[in-house]
């Protein structure tokens, strides 16, 4: 059986094609203003990489904020259920999923791939990928550089504002005070980690903790989370596709 999962997020669109519980191909692209077009593009590209025909796909499941624009999907499931399924597909003993995406972050308590409870960030960009993007741009960094740089920091400067706009001005004033960029960005990563872990404590943190979403690639944030929870987290090879993977997997059931 071949199934496809499509996850239309706020910044990126992802697609995964599964054949009998094996990943055939996947693709991550930037979301364009025309969401329907984005969905078709990521889907077609993933099919092309898999080297299969469109007609061979038995079921298509859409997830993410843009799930309802994927008109050709057979089923729509929220990203919460999909992330729980996707993380458990990769790590069968998943107890908690921490997903930090572009516009929201969520913590999901999981048991045998099923959602027990979940919590999401409120109407605020703090604790999301966008928070890092804004800070990186204030520091003149590329998003890919943030994690390694934070890792090399000698100390973490405290970012006290939770609000993204005020935090940005804090970053700028640290710069003008002559603080080193890596120490500032380490503080930014820690600020996110502190918000996420506080949120995770609301549903309870149970091993294994799987970190997903684009921000999982950021070593600075990952280490800051690990320091706060006191043990190592599991990070999938490609953390951005976990939602799409879960959607594809749920499609087979």
């Amino acid at each position, binding site marked *: 059986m071949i199934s496809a999962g499509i996850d239309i997020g706020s910044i990126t669109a992802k697609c995964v094609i599964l054949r009998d519980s094996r990943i055939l191909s996947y693709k991550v692209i930037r979301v364009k203003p025309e969401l329907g077009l984005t969905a078709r593009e990521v889907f077609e590209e993933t099919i092309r990489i898999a080297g299969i025909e469109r007609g061979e796909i038995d079921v298509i499941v859409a997830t993410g*904020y843009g799930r309802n624009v994927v008109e050709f999907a057979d089923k729509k*499931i*929220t*990203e*919460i*259920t999909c992330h729980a399924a996707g993380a458990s597909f990769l790590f069968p003993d998943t107890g908690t999923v921490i997903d930090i995406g572009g516009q*929201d972050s969520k913590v999901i308590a999981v048991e045998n791939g*099923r*959602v*027990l*409870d*979940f*919590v*999401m960030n*409120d*109407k605020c960009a703090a604790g999301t990928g966008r928070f890092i993007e804004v800070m990186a741009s204030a520091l003149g960094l590329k998003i890919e550089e943030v994690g390694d740089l934070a890792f090399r920091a000698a100390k973490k400067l405290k970012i006290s504002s939770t609000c993204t706009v005020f935090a940005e001005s804090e970053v700028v004033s640290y710069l003008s005070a002559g603080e080193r960029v890596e120490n500032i960005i380490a503080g930014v990563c820690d600020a996110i980690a502190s918000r996420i872990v506080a949120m995770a404590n*609301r549903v309870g943190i149970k091993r294994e903790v799987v970190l997903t979403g684009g921000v999982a690639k950021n070593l600075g944030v990952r280490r800051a989370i690990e320091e706060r929870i006191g043990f190592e987290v599991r990070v999938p090879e490609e953390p951005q596709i976990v939602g799409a993977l879960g959607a594809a997997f749920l499609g087979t059931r």
Partner: protein
Amino acid sequence: MRKLRTSDRMRELMGHYYMQGHQAEFNAWITSGAPVELLYAMDIYPVYPENHGALIGATKLGGYYSEFSEKRGFSRDLCSYARCDIGCVFAGTSPIGGLPKPTFLFACNNICNTVVKWYEVLSRIFKVPLFVLDMPFVRKELKESHLRYVEEQLYDFIDFSEKITGKSLEDSRLKDVISKSLEGVRLYSECLRTAKNRPSPMTCFDAFVNMAPIVCLRGTEHAVSFYTEMKEELEERVRNGISAIENEEIRLLWDNIPVWYRLRWFGEFFERRNACLVADTYTNAWTGFGELKKDDIISSMAEVYTLSYLNIGMDMTAEIINRLIEIYEVDGVVMHSNRSCKPYSFGQYEIQKKLSVPAVIIEADMVDERVFSEAQVVTRLEAFLEML
């Protein structure tokens, strides 16, 4: 959703209610948790800014009227009922042409402390007297000293009103109003309890739409006859196996004040997913006024009104919600974290942990449609239903 016939009757009744307010010799603007029975017993017409706020929300004009007070410096973080009410005064109108100018103001802080400042503002604008009935917050237990404190104020309030109107409160008249209040609350409670049936003949949206008479007309014959009719219709539905929504698979409880500008949207959202919100904590709060005692009116009034739903500690609140979960046999709770209503929304994350069924929290506002984020709400609710 199957509409109740009584909803049309409610509109007619409330239309009359608002019109009569303009003709009354004396009227007092009153908060929703205050003992309105005293006003009716003294022929003082009660006017409810909160009900008016709900009406503005339902007409989707919350943002519009809020701006009239916001541009005079009232913060957007204030309660949207307060912002709209004060905004309408500044605007000189409202969807129903504004409320009648008050003879005096009657604020009871058993629902929140915003009402104190809100009514002080009104008192300055209208230059009319204000009576604040101060009710101690009941963290763990109601103390004898609390009751004495409230009781004394109730007598003070009677003096205050008598001086303004020049009329005195008749014992027999008060007894009569209390009887009608008790009868109205009893019938109203029985209406809500019909939702115990599977499938339920009503949703909490029916309760929201039809709650105005128990709030505004409690203690009058109007509330008694209205809820008699509503109860008959609901019982008829139960007898004929008519459900409120097409296909009831999941039963839910709503917590907090409704999102007035999205009532229909929420109703349809849940119906499409075969979920029925059978009850809610908000409309159930008025069933608590059924404990007044005819032979000991003032002291029972002190007790009943001090123990109002928003004037008690978190453990007691959780206990009440758990009782509703049991009575209505619900599978989950939808908690509206209401930007406007801090006392109602504070502690929801803690209360959630004390509940016997899963709960989801969504963020919105009861009247201010500008803060509603549909995609965020949909994702949380859909994920919750998938989880159940």
